[in-house]
């Protein structure tokens, strides 16, 4: 008797899982649903952009830096760091080539500019 109940419960759970799985899968792969959800995300993002712009203007009116200003500075710092890495590599390649290190000479030979021209349309 107890086993029969347990089996029934198991069967019920399996049916529920299959039914839910099928229905939810239909929902999340439904193009109309995805399209509507994307419109909602687009509206949220547009709202965020408007809100950020308003904040930027308010902060500017108070002569204070906004988040956008700080992010711009951070991105400039990233650019400077990138340039430094590039220059360091070029300097190392130059030194290696002068010391006739074979692998380094090959690396210097495969300079980015030379390769780039080869693939440019």
């Amino acid at each position, binding site marked *: 008797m107890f086993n029969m109940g347990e089996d029934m419960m198991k069967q019920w759970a399996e049916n529920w899982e299959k039914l839910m*799985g099928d229905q*939810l*899968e239909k929902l999340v792969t439904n193009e109309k649903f995805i399209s509507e959800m994307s419109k909602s995300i*687009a509206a949220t*993002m547009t709202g965020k952009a408007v809100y950020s712009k308003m904040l930027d203007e308010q902060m500017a009116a108070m002569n204070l830096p906004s988040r956008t200003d700080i*992010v711009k500075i951070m991105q400039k710092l990233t650019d400077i*760091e990138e340039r430094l890495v590039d220059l360091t590599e070029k300097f190392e390649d130059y030194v290696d080539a002068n010391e006739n290190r074979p*692998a380094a000479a090959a690396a210097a030979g495969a300079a980015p500019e030379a390769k780039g021209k080869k*693939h*440019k349309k």
Partner: protein
Amino acid sequence: MIANMDTIAQQLDAISEHYLRQTAGELDTYPRGVTPREEVWRAGNVSLLRFESPEGVEGQPILIVPSLINRWYVLDITEEVSFIREFAQKRPVYLIDWGYPGAEVGHLPLSHYYHRSIKRAVRFMRREHGCEKVDMLGYCIGGTMAYAFSCLEPDMVDHLVLLTAPIDFKDSGIFGTYADHFPTEEFKQSMDFMPGWLLAFSFNFVQPMGTWQKTKMFKDKFESKGFMKLYNAMERWIADPVSYPGKAYYHMLTELYKENLLSQGKLKTAEGLLVDPAARRSKALILNAGKDHIAPLCTTQLPQSDKAPVKQVTIPSGHIGITTGRNSKDASKSALEFIMN
């Protein structure tokens, strides 16, 4: 009566908080990757890791390019299940750790990652080992990036393993449908990065019964120590989401998912270099997963213009299962055999 109920509620609250804290604490003690390693190079968020190999292990080094969407240590999840550990037994192994990108790199294009960053890593390895070429394994979007790099720099890559890497985005499954509808222009105007939690949510969202099935599996297997070790390590990895740099995310959605430029040989770097599949010369292994819903089998095929030698091995598992599931050993063995021969 009410006072008693209040006391019980308080006690339950204290117990659940204690349990949650303890669980979180335990998860936090799980290592992010198990193979000993050192950071040998860094630029901003991006660093190059070198993994420890047994003494005497030499030869052409292997560079692993993990996905930008999640953390790299899914490839080194436990001592028993680790691509990296297996590779490190045979060859010097390096990996690009993309770190935790934020708003400060939101302006960098996708080509910064698939060309500039990978090239810096390869340059370091060539200087370190005195070799002309390196072997490369790219996982997921990391595979897409490794492929693009091998087209841009054909002289630098010898063997290329594309582990569940989408290359042809024409029929890219459920994620392709979401990408087609995603408001990319609104995203570009408003976001510096795609938040990691939102990416993690979207992966759960497209598999609505995933959590239920995981809970069922947990119930069946929680008494096995081996299972619990892997389960906790995986939970630790899942609970460690990373944000995707804004401009790079925009490029991935528009240039890859929406316009499929890589497969058509029309993708260009920010500097205007053409990513030409016809220029690629490295030997390639497509290592894909039969039940992959993130990179379905048809997306892992190379463009027709790509005439370099290519092999294919399909593992009967899912996108994550190929790295951590019961068939992951077969996958890592296939990759290693391909690289060693």
